[in-house]
């Protein structure tokens, strides 16, 4: 099956930038919220900029919450969440009041503590301390910088964390759990290292059981 990436279109930001990066890597993509597109794609990417509550409202309104949960958590389709798309995986967020998230991982989205040391939002290029090299950070070094732009961060169990960043403390830069991956930074805006990371995700997706098994199913 020819790989095709579905970038979830739910009215929360830079879907086209993610699409541009996927296209640059030579892989087909579409930007959609249609059930059949989500079911038939090799992998899903959930980008997102903006507020947590508005994003969850949109996912509910488009009837994507149960569908995505079934496809990703239930059936193991490879998934990459980016920035807000990572935070949405948590149980809840305190951004503009307490709001429930997708709850795919044990975690909570909280604000950075106000401090004189660092500015908020955390904007710019920071490097990651890589805890799990495979598969997302393959061929990426500790000094590889990625572009961040956020005011809230994910707090989650240690074993889910694949990389951290320093910003007046250690914070979660990326998580992974089986077929679910997510980054707080924007790989689609992180130049060559970001493209490398996206390539790693696409490679993982191409060989994931959820995709290789389907090839054997009768059409």
């Amino acid at each position, binding site marked *: 099956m020819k790989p095709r990436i579905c970038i979830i279109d739910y009215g929360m930001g*830079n879907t086209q930038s993610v699409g541009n990066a996927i296209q640059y890597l030579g892989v087909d993509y579409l930007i959609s919220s249609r059930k059949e597109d989500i079911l038939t794609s090799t992998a899903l990417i959930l980008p997102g900029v*903006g507020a947590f509550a508005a994003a969850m409202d949109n996912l509910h309104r488009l009837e994507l919450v149960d569908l995505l949960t079934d496809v990703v958590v239930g059936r193991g389709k490879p998934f990459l969440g980016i920035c807000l798309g990572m935070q949405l995986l948590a149980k809840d967020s305190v951004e503009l009041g307490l709001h429930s998230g997708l709850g795919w991982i044990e975690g909570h989205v909280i604000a950075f503590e106000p401090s004189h040391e660092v500015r908020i939002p955390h904007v710019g290029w920071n490097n990651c301390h890589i805890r799990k090299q495979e598969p997302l950070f393959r061929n990426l070094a500790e000094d590889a910088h990625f572009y961040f*732009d956020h005011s809230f961060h994910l707090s989650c169990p240690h074993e889910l964390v694949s990389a951290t960043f320093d910003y007046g403390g250690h914070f979660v830069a990326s998580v992974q759990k089986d077929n679910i991956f997510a980054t707080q930074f924007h790989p689609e805006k992180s130049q060559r290292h970001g493209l490398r990371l996206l390539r790693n995700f696409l490679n993982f997706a191409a060989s994931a059981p959820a995709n290789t098994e389907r090839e054997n199913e009768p059409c």
Partner: protein
Amino acid sequence: MGLAKRIIPCLDVTAGRVVKGVNFVGLRDAGDPIEIARRYDEQGADELTFLDITASSDERDIILHIIEEVANQVFIPLTVGGGVRSVDDVRRLLNAGADKVGINTAAVTTPQLVADASARFGSQCIVVAIDAKQVSAEGEPLLWHVFTHGGRRDTGLDAVAWAKKMESLGAGEILLTSMDRDGTKIGFNLDLTRAVSDAVSVPVIASGGVGNLDHLVDGVKKGHADAVLAASIFHYGEFTVRQAKEHMARNQIEVRL
């Protein structure tokens, strides 16, 4: 290692071309925006800022096409400002591929726009651009006013207080341009930069007056800026972005190399 200080080449665009003036007047052609954007990306620019200085509103769509084209080929953050008047203007620029949108004159005429745009799209993508000019005389306490309409109109607003107000309304970054220095190549106005940087807790981008690489170092070390923006020194080939970063690294400033 930690968060790197950013170097941001700035492209003033009008009628589809990059131009550069001195003290906001006397424009000189610097080339094709897409070619220039690609060159800076290859040199390691951390971000690109496009300022649409087109006067007539019927030419506004040109910048959208340029941003679409750049976003197709260049995978670093793009900030676009100039002529942003409404939440819908912000939306159109974001949809074209801008990651952040700069609001300048409209923030003064309609401060609520900053609140509305940041509530809708998030503070992280709203940059308030402030053009400031010293109004205090020699020997008086330093005072800078906010100017609008491309630097032609004195609003009477104290630039430092204005920056704090913009932060409270939801600005995620402040792009601070010293009008006295813009295009002069004598260095940032460090007093102004430090006064604003120390007054707000959002990141501050210093702009206006860079003529050599030491000026960039000063902007960070003496001006306390989180990012430094420059145009002329890069446009006319005096320095590459890479040379600028290497110079900052030699001066113990964390950069992305």
